[in-house]
């Protein structure tokens, strides 16, 4: 990512951050209810699956939202060792607002990254050292009560892998930590 793109992305992130913070101030996030039906009723319609099927048409600029706790962040950075490198759950901006990701967790925070931020072809010197080259991409895995739900899967070529080498893991986490943007700080 060029430095100009990085600065623009940071500025847009700041705007989103202000928007989400304002949303938290103006409208208290809906809290979890024991009555499932009541809970479903209060969920925004945009995240209810209904009859919609799987949609894998991701664009590089689409945003992905992941919830975080105070334990996950320091200053304005999501700590690298706290990233899950396989099957990480995220919400997709195409079908949700940033605050939908913490619908059931009103005190948690939101970290945002884009599809293009996901690490590709790691580890970087993998071809030289002949280790398994891993790429990661989002996969739409809708839930009935959260249509925007996606998971970050790791691939070797076109084959999905459940594990990756130590160096790839380290690079994945460092890259994600560098590129993740804290939209909303957690209250707990």
């Amino acid at each position, binding site marked *: 990512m060029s430095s100009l793109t990085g*600065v623009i992305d*940071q500025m847009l992130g700041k705007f989103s951050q202000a928007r989400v913070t304002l949303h938290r101030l103006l409208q208290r996030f809906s809290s979890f209810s024991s009555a499932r039906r009541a809970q479903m009723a209060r969920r925004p319609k945009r995240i209810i699956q209904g009859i919609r099927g799987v949609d894998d048409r991701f664009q590089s600029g689409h945003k992905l939202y992941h919830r975080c706790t105070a*334990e*996950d962040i*320091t*200053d*304005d*950075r999501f*700590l*690298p*060792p*706290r*990233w*899950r*490198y396989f099957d990480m759950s995220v919400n997709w901006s195409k079908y949700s607002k940033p605050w939908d990701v913490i619908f059931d967790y009103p005190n948690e925070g939101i970290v945002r990254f884009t599809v293009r931020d996901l690490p590709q072809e790691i580890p970087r010197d993998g071809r030289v050292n002949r280790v398994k080259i891993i790429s990661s991409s989002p996969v739409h895995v809708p839930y009935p009560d959260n249509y925007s739900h996606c998971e970050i899967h790791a691939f070797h070529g076109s084959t999905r892998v459940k594990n990756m080498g130590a160096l790839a893991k380290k690079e994945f986490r460092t890259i994600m930590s560098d590129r993740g943007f804290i939209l909303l700080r957690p209250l707990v």
Partner: protein
Amino acid sequence: MEASANTLSYLTLESNASSATADSWWNKCNIPWGSIFAQTNEYYATTFDKQFATHFAKLRALGTERALWPDGAERPSRSALTWGYVALQQFLHDNFLPTRVVASAEGGVAICFCPRRQIF
């Protein structure tokens, strides 16, 4: 500082190695956590040392408090906790203060050194 750090021989690794479960290991472990904080009021006289005391306390809590583990992650293994402790002792000895001590997403312990990110 160095003389004080040398007094921190809390850990007897060999005697703990054969414990059956992480719980029993953690409870019976020879690390005198209480003494770190009780005996060392004068030892932890500076802010720097107090910050280290916080890290030791956090490491201790990682073994038992589920809220500190990432969602879906395993509890930090006892070897991870032990090595985390050894590493922290070394950092204390070297006057090298970590930013945070956290449970990692795959049952480990991470000692983090994070620079502040500069924006614009």
